């Protein structure tokens, strides 16, 4: 009964991962099937590269900020959706839309919204008087604004999934628990932080774990929006790996960049899953 699952994991997860690990120790290039073992030379080379160092930092900023925003906003939306109001089904549909939209199409739309010459945001800010003559936000031409744009799109994209998960968690908490907390004198904040969030810890952990792994390994937003620019300052490890390994043809180096964070992700996953299990048992 487990055979299909085992086959799936072996062929599509374990094998490519082991091969990526192997390739990272070789001088493999895209245009050739010949390669030789080079030990840790690729890792030494990428570690000394300032673009890699910047990408590593960006990956953590990208993941941390976007996950924080997704969790906070997801909680707010989930709580709003628990209440009854007119047009709730339409609101729910609209909230889920970004999850269903193909990322390439959506990013093209965002590309125009953040375009350095024709940004809709800038034109609106100009009309309302926020931007004076000669002032302009170069969203994709500035490293900080570029990262802000990337994080915005990623949050927009991840929010529906997180909202749905949190909504399921909130719905699963029996009303009696909330009523008991209210009788004991707990205010809204105390109820959220001392009753609901602890009870939702297993589901929150799954949401955070999924979000972190997904964000750590995502390259699509960066690649479609900034291509890592300006001057390679908005790359994350996944997009840098693609640039080095596929576009640049240095497969060994690209693989070294791609798998760099695997040990950290494994540790993170183990810790979070243990924490979730402890919470369930408790």
């Amino acid at each position: 009964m487990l055979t299909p699952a085992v086959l799936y994991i072996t062929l599509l997860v374990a094998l490519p991962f082991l091969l990526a690990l192997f390739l990272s120790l070789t001088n493999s290039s895209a245009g050739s099937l010949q390669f030789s073992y080079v030990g840790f030379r690729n890792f030494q080379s990428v570690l000394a590269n300032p673009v890699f160092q910047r990408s590593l930092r960006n990956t953590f900023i990208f993941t941390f900020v976007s996950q924080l925003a997704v969790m906070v906003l997801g909680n707010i939306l989930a709580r709003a959706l628990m209440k009854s109001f007119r047009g709730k089904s339409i609101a729910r549909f609209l909230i889920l839309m970004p999850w269903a939209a193909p990322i390439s199409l959506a990013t093209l739309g965002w590309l125009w919204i953040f375009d350095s010459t024709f940004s809709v945001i800038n034109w609106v800010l100009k009309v309302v008087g926020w931007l004076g003559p000669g002032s302009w936000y170069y969203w994709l031409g500035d490293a900080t604004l570029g990262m802000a744009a990337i994080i915005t799109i990623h949050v927009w994209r991840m929010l529906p999934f997180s909202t749905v998960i949190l909504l399921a968690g909130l719905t699963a908490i029996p009303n009696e628990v909330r009523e008991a907390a209210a009788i004991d004198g707990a205010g809204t904040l105390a109820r959220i932080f001392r009753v609901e969030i602890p009870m939702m810890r297993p589901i929150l952990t799954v949401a955070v774990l999924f979000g972190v792994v997904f964000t750590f390994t995502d390259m699509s937003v960066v690649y479609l929006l900034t291509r890592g620019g300006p001057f390679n300052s908005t790359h994350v490890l996944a997009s840098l790996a693609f640039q080095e390994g596929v576009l640049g043809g240095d497969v060994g180096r690209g693989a070294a960049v791609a798998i760099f964070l695997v040990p950290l992700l494994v540790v993170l996953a183990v810790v979070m899953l243990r924490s979730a299990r402890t919470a369930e048992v408790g």
Partner: protein
Amino acid sequence: MQTRRQFILKGGKLVAVGAAAAAAGPTILVRDARAAGQLKILQWAHFVPAYDKWFDPWAKEWGSKHGVEVTVDHVGFADVVPRATAEVAAQAGHDIHMFLGLASAFEEHVIDLGDVVGNLEKKYGKQVELAHRSTYNPFTKKQFALSDMWVPDPGNFHKGVWAKIGMPNGPVTYDDLVKAAPEIKKAAPQMQIPIGIGLSQDIDSNMAVRNILWCHGGSIQDKDSNVVLNSPETLAALEYTKKLYSVGMTQAVLSWNAASNNQAFNAQETAYILNSISAYRTAQDNKLPVLDNYFFTPALKGPKAQLASEHVMSGYVVWKFSKNQDAAKEFLTALVDASRDSMLGSKLYNFPSFFGAAAEPGTPLAKKPESGAAWITAQCNKDPFGSSPPDKLALLAKSLPWSTNLGYPGFANPAEGEIFDTYVLTDMFAKAATGALSPKDAMAEASTRAKQIFDKWRQKKMVGGGGKDK
């Protein structure tokens, strides 16, 4: 016969690289049937869409005349290399693959087209030098690709604005850009970016920064493939760009993609860009207000040279895994034979790599390149696609002397290709221009990376030089 180890390694590489490439671009379904008489061609989606409307039926018609079923698949220009990577890993896919620029990294997996080029030269005379330098590896002595066309990269200027500042014929030198930028700001304050030369991670910026480098006497490699980026000439090019950026550009140019300079110029948000005529054809097709002010200049003169990179250089390869190599060679020969139709099909965007293929029929071999050049000049002097005035594109006919190949002053090679595709040079220029690094530090950083890349390819015995690296 493969060993188990070879099989596993090859299969693994296929999975890893194929998955990455598939994630990057549109999926192309390649039919598995490999019956004799099939020819599958992977081609870019041309910047002038009219070309694809000419090419696809032409290819099919060639096929029906020769009893070959021809399939043409188009991908965006950015997906040409990832798709090639995936097909090499799979050792399956198309028979013919068109590259834009540098196919040299794939040399090991393509057949030698020396016989095809030799026959074409016997028929039409020599191909243009920049095509030869883009498709031949002097180190391995392999003709790894065939170029049927190249594209000039002139300056595009807004005549109305430049006339207002007393330069109705546009800039002539790189210094003119620095002098004109503050004047343009005064004369056309509504324009966001007086000088629109990209410094971003895209193909046009990659060409533009090479132009600036070469015109200041610098280059990545010398003619013998030694890395010479670390030089006073490179420093001069970076200092010039820093000055130009401060007086005439904005951060927008750091974020541009291949279409951005076209869009900015066509929206009259910039007065000068470096581009082929595709943006102009778009302005024509859409009857944009900029059209009356849309004019061209030759490559700008720098302190040391007047040079511009080709904007596009076709490099058709035939994979070793192709089952129809003879048909592929015949097809490529026919494509060069059709150089006149190809140039007209692209609305004068494509220029023949074999000028002789555009000669008047019946011209003796020795006179063919000259006759072809005369035909090309006639088209440019009287644009059949409605330019006003009709000789607006006349300067393109004289673009060969100031056009050169990626890799100048040497040949195109895989190291130059990797530097191009990983944006080492645009990174260096953008960092120096914005002050993110001093010009000297930006040059040192880029030079270190360039040497690493060259060393890697030298170890693979695909690039020469190294004895005189700076």
